[in-house]
């Protein structure tokens, strides 16, 4: 559902006696590539990410073995001498699924910094993050280092959102990035995105709900004694910030629809107003007073309630469909809030370690040569240097 969630007729007044079909905005969303190709359940999302990590590790292992063999053939002595230390099992240290996930979250944050540096609009920022996350649903950091992918995603997102920036001025503002680094990756990114560039963000539906909540809660007369246009305006602003802080960085865009995410933002910012709004929209046929007095209702929306308890609802058979729809929506919203706030935190130390691992995964030659040099080094003290 969105602001215009009511079923609208496709406004084709066809004078011919052809049977007309009605297409709702929900139907339109279901036909979007975002829904068709990039929507997951929590389980299938994790599975896809794990698979990407898995195949990245596999590719990195193959690359490593190749490099290892070729170096050993060129200069076999150290490999004879340090058989114990110089074997692939010992040298190879690939990123685990958890490490990769943390690493990607770390880089998602730098997308936002990059976009802010260029003063790009919200739309570009949000699309760039979406491209980046989609890229790593298909690919892995064990094959593509996130730094240049992140810049490429920003560059492509800017173009896709009609906020063109020339490659020269883009690269000029970045450190140690060449024009070629980005242009060479642009097509690979587009391909990994399965050539789908349209991203539906929750900002538009949020604005819709802002307008609609005014109509529903303030007109013809205010429904809540302490809610006026300023209250709703402030709810809107805070919700926008919420979307930037939580929705953008978490994975909710792959698990929920944009209107659901927008409602989650509002609900988390002000449960009381948002809930009243939802009730008014969904349960309009019933008398609100009665609903508000219902004791189960207040229990249902209690925040501290554990997840499982959500299912503990009156199991009466005569539950009316509107109420059921409302309850399902609130459950969805609350699940969305919970997932939005599960952004893994990474310490600086941790990211540095992961960063190093990633570097050597992508540059096995450097890894092997470094080990060889260290082992062959005459002074054992120097060995103490970082591995």
């Amino acid at each position, binding site marked *: 559902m969105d602001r215009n969630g009511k079923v609208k007729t496709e406004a084709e007044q066809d004078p011919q006696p052809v049977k007309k079909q009605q297409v709702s905005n929900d139907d339109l969303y279901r036909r979007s590539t975002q829904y068709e190709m990039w929507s997951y359940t929590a389980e299938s999302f994790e599975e896809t990410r794990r698979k990407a990590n898995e195949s990245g590790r596999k590719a990195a292992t193959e690359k490593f073995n190749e490099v290892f063999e070729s170096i050993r053939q060129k200069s076999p002595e150290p490999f004879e001498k340090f058989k114990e230390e110089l074997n692939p099992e010992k040298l190879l240290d690939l990123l685990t699924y958890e490490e990769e996930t943390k690493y990607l979250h770390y880089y998602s944050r730098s997308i936002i910094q990059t976009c802010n540096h260029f003063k790009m609009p919200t739309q570009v920022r949000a699309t760039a993050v979406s491209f980046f996350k989609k890229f790593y649903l298909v690919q892995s950091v064990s094959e593509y280092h996130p730094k240049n992918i992140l810049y490429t995603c920003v560059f492509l997102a800017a*173009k896709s959102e*009609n906020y063109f920036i020339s490659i020269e001025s883009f690269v000029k503002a970045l450190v140690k990035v060449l024009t070629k680094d980005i*242009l060479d990756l642009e097509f690979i990114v*587009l391909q990994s995105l399965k*050539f789908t560039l*349209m991203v539906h963000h929750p900002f538009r539906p949020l604005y819709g709900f802002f307008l609609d909540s005014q109509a529903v809660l303030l007109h013809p007369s205010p429904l809540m004694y302490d809610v006026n246009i300023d209250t709703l305006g402030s709810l809107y602003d805070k919700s926008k910030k919420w979307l930037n802080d939580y929705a953008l960085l978490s994975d909710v865009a792959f698990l929920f629809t944009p209107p659901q995410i927008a409602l989650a933002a509002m609900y988390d910012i002000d449960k009381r107003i948002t809930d009243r709004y939802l009730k008014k929209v969904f349960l309009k046929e019933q008398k609100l007073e009665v609903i508000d007095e219902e004791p189960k209702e207040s229990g249902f929306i209690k925040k501290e309630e554990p997840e499982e308890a959500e299912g503990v609802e009156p199991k009466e058979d005569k539950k009316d469909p509107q109420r059921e729809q409302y309850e399902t929506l609130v459950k969805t919203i609350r699940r969305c809030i919970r997932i939005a706030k599960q952004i893994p935190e990474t310490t600086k130390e941790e990211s540095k370690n992961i960063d190093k691992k990633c570097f050597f995964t992508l540059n096995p030659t450097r890894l092997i040569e470094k080990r060889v040099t260290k082992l062959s080094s005459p002074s054992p003290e120097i060995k103490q240097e970082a591995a």
Partner: protein
Amino acid sequence: MTTAPLKYSKSKKVGEGTYAVVYLGTQISSNRKIAIKEIKTGMFKDGLDMSAIREVKYLQELKHPNVIELVDVFSATNNLNLVLEFLPCDLEVLIKDTSVVFKSADIKSWLLMTLRGIHHCHRNFILHRDLKPNNLLLAPDGQLKIADFGLARSLGNANEDLTSNVVTRWYRAPELLFGAKHYTPAVDMWSVGIIFAELMLRTPYLPGKDDVDQLDVTFRALGTPTEQIWPNVSMLPQYNALRVYPPPSRQELRNRFSAATEKSLDLLISMTQLDPSRRCDLTQALLHEFFLESPRPTEPEDLPKKKEKRVKEEDDEMNKRFKV
């Protein structure tokens, strides 16, 4: 969506645009005729061309009988290939072909299909921004398909300014001519109105020679907008030193479009309102009484077709058969 190029066979080159070469081809599995638009990559200073990006972005989302179908996208040797349904003709070709007679039911049918396609775009928050007869392609079964989304864009990110330098000049709405930075789906509606007029006249309605002349041609035909009929128009960037023409009288319009019914004039007037906020939207246009009065719109398969083209097509068919 990423498919091996082996799924399609290319037969011959049919056209070349600024950023793409178009080939005719066949989808091997179905023997369906298709057009392959091969977008050159790696030859532009700034990477993938903006028009190509827009075309892919929007066509991926728009599935409608009156919007060109993007059958597939694939990459081959770092080239981006758009597989499009094969559309052998366009409305401009027919308008120019004086041997083809347009009945008013035919015009109604083309107009209706155009409006349906655009309505679908607008419902998906997509502005086409370059509607003209040349971009309204015709399928062999007579269906009209909106094509060329190289200038399209998404609607409604309030914090962005839009460029007013879009839409081929003759079909450019007055707010764009005045350099408006915040425009609406009404720019597409204007273009459809001008195309409607062109279908009736069989010649371009407002053929300005340059951007300045376009203002003059437009207002000579439709009257110069004033603050009275279009509040705040004088605030727009390029609104200055205009010659003041009076709006055309109803009788003048009747004379201009001699075969038009009163209802078709009503619709045309509504589509070409100078003030974009007074222009009808797609829903209103589709619900207009013009579409309810007789005659009924011609069935697509019964619409006039370009004769030569059909012969050429059969030629292609023959060539292919011999090649195989």
